[in-house]
């Protein structure tokens, strides 16, 4: 079970992630998931996109967005499993699984964004 002490922190991460996901993710999915692949907007060159995403400041913001959004997911998803699917009896396993995934995802985000910063730098 997630220790009671960590609950306030997890709720804080949930809230911060909720804000980040709401503000940043719709435009990113719209641009790179739909508008650009489907040709609604002219395709930006790789240099252009790398220039933006690989900028250290942008990468830092994106790292925050990705990590916090993943912790937001973990909190909401475990409650979906507890309440929606009535799996409260398994909360120990569920908590460990979702937060492990959130941490692994955040580390992956760090690695990938680092790659982009390095690629932009030369």
């Amino acid at each position: 079970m997630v220790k009671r002490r960590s609950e306030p922190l997890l709720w804080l991460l949930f809230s911060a992630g909720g804000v980040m996901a709401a503000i940043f993710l719709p435009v990113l999915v719209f641009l790179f998931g739909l508008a650009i692949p489907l040709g609604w907007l002219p395709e930006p060159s790789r240099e252009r996109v790398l220039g933006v995403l690989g900028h250290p400041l942008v990468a830092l913001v994106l790292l925050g967005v990705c990590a916090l959004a993943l912790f937001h997911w973990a909190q909401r998803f475990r409650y979906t499993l507890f309440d929606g699917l009535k799996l409260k009896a398994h909360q120990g396993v569920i908590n460990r699984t979702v937060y492990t995934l959130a941490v692994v995802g955040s580390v992956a985000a760090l690695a990938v964004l680092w790659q982009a910063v390095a690629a932009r730098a030369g």
Partner: protein
Amino acid sequence: MSTRGDAAYQGPGSQPRTYRRPVSILWWLHKRSYAFFVLRELSAVFVAWAVVLVLLLVRAVALGEAEYRGFLDWAGTPWVVVLDVVTLAFLVLHAVTWFNLTPAAMVVRVGSRRLPPAAVAGGAYAAWVVVSALVAWLVMR
């Protein structure tokens, strides 16, 4: 010992033995407000997918021209497009419900006066518009 005026209360540490009607696993389909609640909770799954999508893009762009091309071609395939349309719908649901709840979660004071809830929600929507425009401008300019 009936300190709470409750016939089932049997002292500290004991579980009241009340009958619990078994709840169906589809309990949330019985009422529209319940279904909406579960849809809102499910938005988190699409938040996670959006993060994966962004990281796949960042990785492709970091690796090279061919990988970037490959990402855009993959993102244009029908199943991914369908997934991303659904994702965008859930993200907007998340954003709207989140911003509408912001005034309830956050009391903003200017001096000693409390900012009206509508202004707090309005500020959140304004931030959404500004950030979206900024991101689009950075990428497309």
